[in-house]
């Protein structure tokens, strides 16, 4: 993205130069500066209770820096960093067990603010209309107290909370609407809530399969990976892929995984939806009408314990391996066909990848 901006700027500058041959400084948007301008952040969740979450940065030039939050800011990030989101020049790190969001400049990683009231077991974040929307499980044993916190981005304070069904997990903004997947907590979720940011109320609820644990939007459609009810539940179910038409928020189609399969993760790159089943990575063309029979590849060749973080981006597949969950985790970077290109030793339990460009 950054590269595109540069090219555009250069192109615009060139146009100006030919027309009035003045210097281009006046009209080029100043490029962001900082140590973390182009590359990928890795959220390392680390150990629940130990307060040792960290952020790693892997630059486009191939330089890895671990523990950047503490090294820039002089204090530890907190306990069990769950996820991260970008809005304008800022990055928001959701720190689950610390019940807070650390707000930093996304280019320098310098601390800007901490949101530490109004959050209770926060999970994921999305942005729209000058506000952030954060899913909160609250008390995991209480199925009635889950909510989406609304943060005013100008003041970094929680200004409202929207009561939702149990277990709100992934959240994303698409077409100016906020979509919340209810993975479930104590029980098992089966819905997507749609929040209208103009009213901060739920505008509709979309029924999907059991345990929608991942979703991604593309070309007016929402792809929802439903993991199915787990083996220890009273009635185990196999996973499903739901496709929702965002024009009217109705289910367009769904695909059932045959047998008893529990898929997770969802990431779209180059017209293909990538998802995982245990250690195997599958790709399904968005134009396909059946689920793929065989995986593209499996991470077991790397001796990976499993897939803890997952993302398809920049024609690559990124896998976070938590190893034993109590030592430096690994990140494996593959081509879209599964050729291992790079291995990184990052923080403990890498759970997500966020691209800063």
């Amino acid at each position, binding site marked *: 993205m950054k590269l595109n901006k540069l090219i555009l700027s250069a192109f615009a500058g060139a146009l100006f130069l030919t027309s009035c041959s003045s210097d281009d400084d006046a009209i080029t948007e100043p490029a962001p500066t900082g140590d973390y301008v182009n590359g990928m952040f890795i959220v390392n969740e680390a*150990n629940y*209770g*130990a*307060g*040792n979450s960290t952020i790693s940065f892997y630059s486009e030039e191939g330089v890895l820096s671990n523990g950047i939050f503490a090294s820039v800011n002089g204090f*530890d990030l*907190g*306990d*069990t960093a769950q996820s991260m989101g970008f809005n304008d020049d800022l990055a928001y790190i959701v720190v689950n*067990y*610390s*019940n807070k969001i650390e707000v930093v400049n996304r280019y320098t990683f310098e601390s800007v603010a901490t949101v530490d009231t109004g959050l209770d077991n926060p999970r994921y974040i999305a942005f729209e209309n000058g506000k952030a929307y954060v899913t909160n499980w609250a*008390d*995991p*044993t*209480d199925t009635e107290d889950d909510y989406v916190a609304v943060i005013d981005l100008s003041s970094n304070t929680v200004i409202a909370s929207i009561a939702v069904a149990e277990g709100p997990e992934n959240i994303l903004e698409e077409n100016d609407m906020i979509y919340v997947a209810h993975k479930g907590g104590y029980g098992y979720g089966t819905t997507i809530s749609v929040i209208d940011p103009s009213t901060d109320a739920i505008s509709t609820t979309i029924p999907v399969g059991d345990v929608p644990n991942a979703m991604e939007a593309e070309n007016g459609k929402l792809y929802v990976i439903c993991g199915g009810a*787990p*083996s*220890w539940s009273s009635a185990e179910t196999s996973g499903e892929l739901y496709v929702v038409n965002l024009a009217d928020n109705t289910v367009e189609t769904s695909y059932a995984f045959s047998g008893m399969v*529990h898929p997770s993760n969802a990431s779209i790159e180059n017209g293909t939806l990538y998802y995982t089943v*245990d*250690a195997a990575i599958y790709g399904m063309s968005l134009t396909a009408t059946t689920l793929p029979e065989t995986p593209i590849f499996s991470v*077991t060749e790397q001796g990976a*314990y*499993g*897939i*803890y973080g997952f993302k398809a981006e920049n024609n690559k597949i990124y896998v976070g391996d*938590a190893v*034993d*969950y*109590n*030592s*430096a985790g690994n990140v494996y970077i593959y081509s879209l066909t599964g050729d291992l290109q790079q291995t990184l030793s990052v923080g*403990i339990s890498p759970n997500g990848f966020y691209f800063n460009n």
Partner: protein
Amino acid sequence: MIMALRKLGYIFLLLLCQYVCAQTDSITQLKEVVISDTQLKDFSKSQQVWQLNDSIINRSPSSLGALLNYNTVIYFKENGLGMVSSPSFRGTNAQQTAVIWNGININSQLNGQTDFNIINTRDFDEVSVRAGGGSVIYGSSAIGGSIHLNNELRFKDTFDNTLFLSYGSYNTQGLNYKLNVANKKFSSSFAVSRNSSDNDYEYPSGIINENGQYYNTSLNASFGYKLNEKNILRLYSYFYDGDRHFSRTVSAPSLSKYKDYNTRNLLEWMGIYGKFTSKLKAAYLTENYKYYARYTNDNYTFGEVKTYIGRYDLAYQVTDNIKLNTLLNYTVNKGKGSDIDNKNREIASGSLLLQHSVTPKLQYEAGVRKEITNAYESPLLFSLGGSYQVASFYTVKLNASRNFRIPTYNDLYWQGSGNPNLNPETSYQGELGNEFRVKNIKLTVTGYYIRMHDMLRWVPGSDNIWRPENVDKAKTYGIESVLNWDKKLGNHHFTIDATYAYTVSQRDGSTNQLIYVPFHKATAAVGYSYKGLGFYYRHLYNGKVYYTSDNVSQVDAYNVSTIGAEYQFKFLGGLTVGAQVRNLWAEEYENVRARPLPGRNYTMYLNFKF
């Protein structure tokens, strides 16, 4: 005579000793009839047994974990003051140390370990530590060693009351009342403890240790009745009811709470028939926990196990120098919980023990044990050891054994991740103990090696679900030494008691130290008394521990000290008043990552016998 001896001994200990070691054989014969766990004396001669006496118990915090942490080689991992405390004895884990209450193994059936902060030491007459393997006698978990909590019952005219009260910083209150009533036919002992604390100390960063408050009540009652000269009935009962909030960390608040409710009952019929001593025992134990993710509502998860034990213990004195002992045991566990499948488990076991004093200086002992159960494959266990007094000042002890730790309810039956096909963890281990006694000095230096097989570890599967598997092999070895010195010059009494442990503990395929096992740990206690006045200083050095398995992150080493003074008024049976400054040097330290322990704090206590 016994009483007089005991009283004399008691005063002697009160004034002098921080720490005494196992009784000599002549006293053992007397003691044999007063506690149920006779194997601790009769079949532990090739290993180290350390008994913690009353004076050290009275000068320590009420929890078993704190007592042992400051006075033995055992390392404790404590999740904040008063929170869950788990031992690492000789580099093993918490499930490889057994806690034995009046001869009965009371480690949790659910998680296989004992939380050392939910045992109140003052409920017992005798707290002993037996280092090294003991599964042949005590069953599961006696790998690193075992902790023995015994109640004594003596048939002598007695009417003794003891009241202990303490008050300290953070509104920490302790109460213990003991009553012993006995005559020649009947003996009873009754103890009740109540402990509570706001536990709201300040972290070095200024954060308050929120949600750390706790209270607990425990009750221990023992009754003995002599049917005749040959038959004695004994009943032991123990109740523990605790309510602990789990405190916050430096980086995360907490609203969670944990309730423990445990009961233990043991009925024993002992008969002495010539050279045979027969003990028929029936025990009923219950354990129950409730975990509240938020104390602010009534939602909780729970686990509960009821355990029924039948045991027959037959000892045969073959000759004056040879003892044989068979132990037949049948245990039924009935477990249920919000996260475990309801399961019953039955375990039958038989042990045969032999002890032979070849000469007054040379003895050996041997034992075997086999279990039969439907829950797992059980290995044949053994123990073989001996001791030899090489010179008047030097005794050498050797012991080798195979021990085990059985899979727990959580391991086997946790919903969605329990693994019903587990085997017990097993160990082969050996130790060489050296005891030196010169005048007032006793020094023991013991080297040990433990080889662990089939170690259970919860490993995440490719589906990111954690399941226990018998995956690991590990070795742990080290040296532990204990030094005791006392000197009496007129009315001046000096004591020094010190321990040091060097421990290496590694999983196969790695040279990294296992997490939360320090390489070095040392304790030292110095006491001085003059007539009724006593001063004492004790110090703990806890070496660094790693908290990540790659040994990249560590909790730093720390030094923490307590200084105290007490005075005994000669009033009725004796009224002792004392005060302590804990963490004298105001060390800022953590025992577990992100959980600072208190700075300098104060305690006063009163111990009244009447």
